[in-house]
């Protein structure tokens, strides 16, 4: 017997993501999913930018990692609320894990929620978690060829942050190569060059975040 089904395998996952988004819409907070390889500077970016969001602005962070609570400990000073999600062997955060994480947060008391996804350039790109915007980071030490190598990650980005730009010159890295690859992959997302370590470009990222939050339906 042949049963015709024709149903998206991702339906259940996408429904959970939609429910996450509804909860965050209700709380009127902007949720940004941060995606990148491990070590590109997601945690450092948040450490440096959350205090710059403005007085009285409260940000929460859901941090995904296979193991340890190190990132959550690092962010405890900068964020109003932090929850670490250990995925064990999971190579990406799932909307179900995010739903659980949301339940541990007081959403009504937040203006922003950042989801720091598991460091990985392939798997996290395939799953909607319920975020409003996707930020993709690419650090200088990773090389200027990664947009061409992992195009699906960059295609789905709403903003692209080129991090650790203080290392340009030390390493063989050219912005024009990144720009040329992005011309084939994503010309809509703004590209922000930054170094959270030195503080360069952080203001531009913060301005982008404020703009996105202001554009949310009230």
């Amino acid at each position, binding site marked *: *017997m*042949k*049963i*015709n*089904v*024709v*149903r*998206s*395998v*991702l*339906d*259940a*996952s996408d429904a959970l993501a939609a429910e996450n988004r509804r909860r965050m819409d209700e709380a009127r907070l902007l949720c940004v999913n941060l995606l990148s390889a491990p070590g590109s500077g997601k945690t450092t970016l948040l450490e440096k930018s959350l205090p710059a969001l403005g007085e009285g602005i409260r940000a929460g962070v859901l941090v995904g990692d296979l193991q340890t609570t190190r990132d959550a400990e690092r962010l405890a000073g900068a964020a109003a609320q932090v929850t670490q999600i250990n995925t064990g062997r*999971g*190579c*990406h955060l*799932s909307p179900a894990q995010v739903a659980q994480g949301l339940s541990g947060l007081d959403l009504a008391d937040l203006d922003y929620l950042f989801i720091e996804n598991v460091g990985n350039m*392939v*798997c996290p*790109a*395939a*799953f909607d978690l319920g975020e409003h915007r996707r930020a993709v980071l690419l650090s200088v030490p990773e090389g200027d060829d990664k947009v*061409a190598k992992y*195009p*699906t990650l960059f*295609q789905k980005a709403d903003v692209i942050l080129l991090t650790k730009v203080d290392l340009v010159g030390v390493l063989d890295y050219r912005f024009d190569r990144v720009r040329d690859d*992005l*011309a*084939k*992959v*994503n*010309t*809509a997302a703004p590209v922000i060059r930054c170094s959270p370590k030195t503080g360069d470009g952080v203001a531009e990222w913060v301005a982008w975040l404020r703009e996105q939050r202001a554009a949310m339906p009230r």
Partner: protein
Amino acid sequence: MHEMSIATGMLQGVLKAAAEHGATRVEEVEVELGAMRLIVPEALEMAWEVLVEGTPAAGSRLKMTEVPIRAKCRECGRTYEAEVGSFACPTCGQADVEIVAGDDIILKSVICRTGEEAPEP
């Protein structure tokens, strides 16, 4: 290895369809893999084999077809087939696109057996 998550979602759909039709055994599962999802067929097969163990889908075959990417240019509205990594519009050159096909994983059909049917030779 997000193939494990995908296989888990597939199995839920397959078992639901089988149960709705009173099937006791699943023999073949047909699935369409959107090229944007970067599924490695061998990895999906491996995940499937592990997951189906002890379920009515144990030992079932996967019939996988890759669906090419179709992009719609947000600048000029043209719809065209795109390759992974080369999404730019052939007309206006912009890479500001909406992916309209090849970004999903679709469970197409399930071939199964009910208790009364004789097993395949």
